[in-house]
């Protein structure tokens, strides 16, 4: 993946989700249990180490996180991951920082795991198949930026 991912942009919606979370700073506010906390840990690590890919880490995304999340807030984060995506297509790596944040966010609202196709357009079509409302939110947020 190319360099130049804007980590601060990715961080913004995550911080917003946390600021509205009743569980923030409680025992469930833990990167091993919470998708958002995991995504923030990924960004922190990427910022410190200056890497955009963290080998093998997609396997460490928490298996589940039953806290309630709002599609509106989550879609903002997903829209930014679409904008930060370098559309690597066949070179897409699930361990890319953008992919890790996106997969973590998807886990909060989507009923099943989505294999990222390496292209934003194809991705939105796949989200639409699973959750048309979420796809609409993402598209609207992307249009706004």
């Amino acid at each position, binding site marked *: 993946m190319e360099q130049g991912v804007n980590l601060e942009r990715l961080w913004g919606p995550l911080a917003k989700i946390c600021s509205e979370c009743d569980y923030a700073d409680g025992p469930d506010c833990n*990167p091993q249990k919470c998708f958002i906390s995991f995504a923030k840990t990924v960004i922190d690590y990427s910022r410190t*180490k*200056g890497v955009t890919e963290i080998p093998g*880490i997609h*396997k*460490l995304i928490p298996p589940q996180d039953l806290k309630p999340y709002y599609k509106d807030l989550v879609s903002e984060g997903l829209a930014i991951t679409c904008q930060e995506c370098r559309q690597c297509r066949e070179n897409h790596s699930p361990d890319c920082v953008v992919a890790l944040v996106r997969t973590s966010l998807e886990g909060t609202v989507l009923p099943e795991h989505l294999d990222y196709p390496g292209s934003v357009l194809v991705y939105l079509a796949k989200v639409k198949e699973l959750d048309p409302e979420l796809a609409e939110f993402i598209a609207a947020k992307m249009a706004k930026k």
Partner: protein
Amino acid sequence: MSQAVFKQRNGLMAVVLVTDCGLITPEKLKLLGEMTDEFAIKTFKLTTRQTIIALLPEEQVGAFTKAAEERGFKIGYFKEAVRNVKACSGSSDLCPRALGEALPLGIKLQEKFFGRELKHDFKIAVAGCHRGCTDPYCADFGVIARGNNLFDIYIGGRGGSRKPVHGVRIAEKVREDGIEEILAFILNTYNELAEPGERLCLTIERVGLEKFIPEEIIKKYKEQGEIIDQDFLKLLQGGK
């Protein structure tokens, strides 16, 4: 091979003291302080190669170098030999940005290869991440940590020159335990193929890079299986 002792414009002599890739213990620092009066050292100068230059009167040089060696300091080499190794503070104890144990690796390479005679001086640089604070891209042999105890290797760089040359990557993600073997191969091949006084980059230009790529050794040490970033894992589990 010559010891790095040089006359300066002001008449003082500069004696180059080699450190462990820039690491110096308080005990050694104290020893240096003690030697300051003993040998009339006027001043010290830190170098870009992570050595310390002691500036002292010419008549003190012999006694000083002998005392320094007795107290555990190595005197630098220059001209046709492997120079002291440069390494950043990349390690699990120091730089938080490090992706690997660059500092211990640098010290290990220095212990093994420092002073080995060659056709020209040969500079080695080890960096704990791709930022390359020790200029591994401009070293004869540059090593860059890639995480998970894996390293990239560049050869044929030349810094400190009016015509700097970037090295070429010859190996990607090889395990730490293979680096010594790869370096030994490069040094042997270089000594075999180089003209006297010819720097590695020029030998590569003349005979071709492929002669310097140890395919079999690289294959032996190249990481094959799936890996999980161990530093991230520690962070996730609340470690440092």
